[in-house]
């Protein structure tokens, strides 16, 4: 009698649509934007003075960074699909937020990233192939954080916000002890998902209490794995700063020029002793959460299509071409450069070997330790007991 009332597919699509009703790509009137999705560059009354310039060379450099890191992302994804990496965390869609903020940093600033900040790593000068060692599963770190003031990737998210605040408080003390040091700030990168975690709250409370020189850079990419940002917060994330007592700014995270200007301002604010700032970069994760994730299971392709016209690379390319700041020659050259980078990356990754067990003994303590040396010797003797090649893995 009531065949139509039995559970049917119509239930499902309704529920999905309800659960994931996206806030839409429009970030609201308060969002700082210089470069609109059509490639038109406008000035901004408040932050215009903080941009490092919109000349051809500057914009081309920013575009190059974004293009290379996207190509890197694609190659790493392919390497994962080919079994060369255990996992990959794609950043596609967030290039402007990462490159823009990264290029605003100065050498003495210190970055605490999540595991998705490949673009920031590029601006800090971390070798891109080095970053893949972690994802190949052959190291716990991958690079020396002190070399580029770019901390190791944090895998258990939100913890890095606390680290950043602690580091910033350390900077304050260094500064007090030695006023000749260049003023510095630390930056905590995190996302809309981590913003719901207690660590971020504690970090912001401490940062405000101690007026720490830290910039909280939140990339609101709208999805915490499968949970939409509408579930994380009822108000724009940037507004939360007000409750802690420091400024919060929402910036168009797909506009590299605006992100750079706003981050410049925030860093200067922090370095000059005025305390922390929260930046919410309003952006979109155009790809999966990781290569082990399938976003088609929880979000609609309509939403992805809504964001497509706001692609950070597309709008800057439009601007460069329509204003004549760059032409085919620039883009062709860049394509070639990216391809060469990908080939080199692939070669580097395939040449990476897992560490031998012997290395483990060397990393128990910072300095040689008699007990460990003894154990190492015992292990060597044990290994020598086997027939055949003595390899250490």
């Amino acid at each position, binding site marked *: *009698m*009531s*065949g139509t*009332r*039995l*559970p049917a597919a119509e*239930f*499902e699509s309704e*529920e999905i649509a309800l659960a994931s009703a996206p806030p839409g790509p429009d970030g609201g009137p308060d969002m700082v934007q210089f470069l609109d999705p059509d490639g038109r560059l406008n000035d901004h009354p408040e932050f215009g003075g903080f941009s490092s310039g919109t000349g051809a060379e500057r914009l081309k450099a920013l575009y190059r960074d974004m293009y290379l890191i996207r190509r890197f992302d694609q*190659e790493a994804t*392919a390497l*994962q*699909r*080919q*079994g*060369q*990496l*255990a*996992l990959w965390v794609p950043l596609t869609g967030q290039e402007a937020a990462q490159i823009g903020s990264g290029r605003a940093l100065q050498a003495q600033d210190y970055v605490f990233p999540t595991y998705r900040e490949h673009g920031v790593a590029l601006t800090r000068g971390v070798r891109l192939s080095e970053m893949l060692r972690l994802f*190949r*599963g052959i190291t716990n770190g991958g690079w020396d954080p002190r070399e580029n003031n770019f901390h190791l990737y944090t895998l258990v998210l939100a913890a890095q916000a606390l680290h950043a605040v602690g580091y910033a408080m350390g900077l304050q003390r260094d500064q007090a002890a030695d006023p000749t040091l260049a003023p510095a700030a630390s930056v905590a990168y995190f996302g809309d998902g981590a913003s719901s975690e207690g660590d971020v709250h504690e970090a912001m409370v401490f940062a405000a209490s101690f007026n720490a020189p830290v910039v909280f850079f939140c990339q609101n990419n709208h999805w915490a794995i499968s949970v939409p940002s509408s579930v994380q917060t009822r108000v724009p994330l940037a507004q939360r700063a007000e409750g802690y007592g420091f400024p919060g700014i929402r910036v168009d995270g797909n506009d590299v020029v605006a992100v750079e200007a706003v981050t410049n301002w925030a860093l200067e604010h922090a370095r000059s002793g005025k305390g922390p700032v929260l930046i919410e970069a309003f952006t979109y994760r155009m790809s999966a959460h*990781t*290569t*082990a*994730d*399938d976003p*088609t*299971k929880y979000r609609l392709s309509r939403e992805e299509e809504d964001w497509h016209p706001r692609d950070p690379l597309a709008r800057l390319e439009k601007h460069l071409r329509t204003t004549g700041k760059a032409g085919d020659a620039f883009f062709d050259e860049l394509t*070639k450069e990216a*391809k*060469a980078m*990908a*080939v080199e990356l*692939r*070669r580097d990754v*395939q*040449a990476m*070997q897992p560490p031998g067990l012997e290395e483990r003994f060397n990393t128990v303590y910072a300095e040689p330790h008699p007990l460990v040396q003894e154990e190492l010797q015992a292990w060597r003797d044990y290994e020598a*007991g*086997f*027939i*055949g090649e003595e390899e250490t893995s």
Partner: protein
Amino acid sequence: MALNTFHLPDVGEGLTEAEIVSWKVQPGAVVAVNDTIVEIETAKSLVELPSPFAGVVSALLVAEGDTVEVGTAIIAVEDAVPAPGEPTSGGPAAQAPAPEMPGELTTPPPVEPAAGPENGPLVGTGPKADAVRRRPRRAAGANTPEPEPAPAPPPAPAVPAALPAAGADGTGPAAGRPDPRPGPLNQLLNRVLAKPPVRKAARDLGINLADVPATGSSGEVTKQDLMSYQAQRDAEQDGADSFWDDRKKHGAGRIERIPVKGVRKATAKAMVQSAFSAPHVSIFVDVDASRTMEFVKRLKASRDFEGIKVSPLLILAKAVIWAAARNPSVNATWTDDEILVKHFMNLGIAAATPRGLMVPNIKDAQNLSLKELALALNDLAVTARAGKTQPAQMQGGTLTITNIGALGIDTGTPIINPGEVAIVAFGTIKQKPWVLDGEVIPRWITTLGGSFDHRVVDGDLSARFMADVASILEEPALLLD
């Protein structure tokens, strides 16, 4: 001019196998690095795999539709002829890395197969599926008992495979030949849901959780349920020890006087009125409810019914509504000079409550979808158990179900709710031997009992109604009619 084989990678953190959905290349095709070669489906998603090699496809080693372990060689690609490729389509990539690729990628195909199915890496990062082998040792003491044992075969694999297989199997444990094991499906169906502290408390109190009526939102036994069950049991059991001795309490008499009032009084009156004014005819039928159990299990697992308590009572309720439409006289009232046939169903559910027996009903149950009906049943049960049933909820019933099975009773002769002409008693569902196609096999069996007012419902009509209800329990798919 080397032959490279590509081994199925673990593309999603801990996958052990994948299905080859479709090949995007055929033998003889020229591929460049990162050209899509195949689409696979893992437990997590559909994934396109890009080629790690440039060259000419020499063989597809796995057919479409096959599911293979991570680490299995799936395609062989021969290096491109050493003509210097143009920079287009990854040419240089092919040339530079190919000769110095790590060994695992250039392994000629026939090396690994023997080790195949035993040892897929649980968390594989790549093509290397090492056979776990004991390395031969140097003869140290000449006769050390180190006998080169064959690779100890882990006896594990069969067990985990069995569970999902039985669960997915259409008609459950009873389907095929008799299975010596108790059957994981049974265990799943019988499993009582409860949170760990409740489980512990039940164990400490010596209460079998299965006996406790559950009111949790997901059908779990809550702390409250356990406490009220315990209170009731205590009241009865504590009394048991001293029941025969303790007379002083009742004013030195041998008889305890309990005032008849409230629900008890109303129940008594209604039952007498019904039993002695309506001539009852009762009939019973045994039903194989295995498919109902399956259906309930599927509903529980479905997204739409997430968080909603689903029980066989839901299917019975639906069946009764369905059967009443086919036999309208059971949904009626006798008024001495008229028979009022109701074209709506206010389905009463007899519920044991702290205040006594209550028969609240679901108004216009005929208009409810399965999901709405489930919600209404939940709501009704929770309200009744909390003792909050309002009089209005008990008025205007047209037909009643009494779920005596919830108390572990097989069947009984129900007494019709006054003003109605039919009542269905739903017995417990348990596994019993059942003859199907000449074979005795365990099936989920229940007994339906029905009482009818003979003034309205004659024997043949009551029999047809009960047969209709039974047919739905035997095959819930008939509801789709």
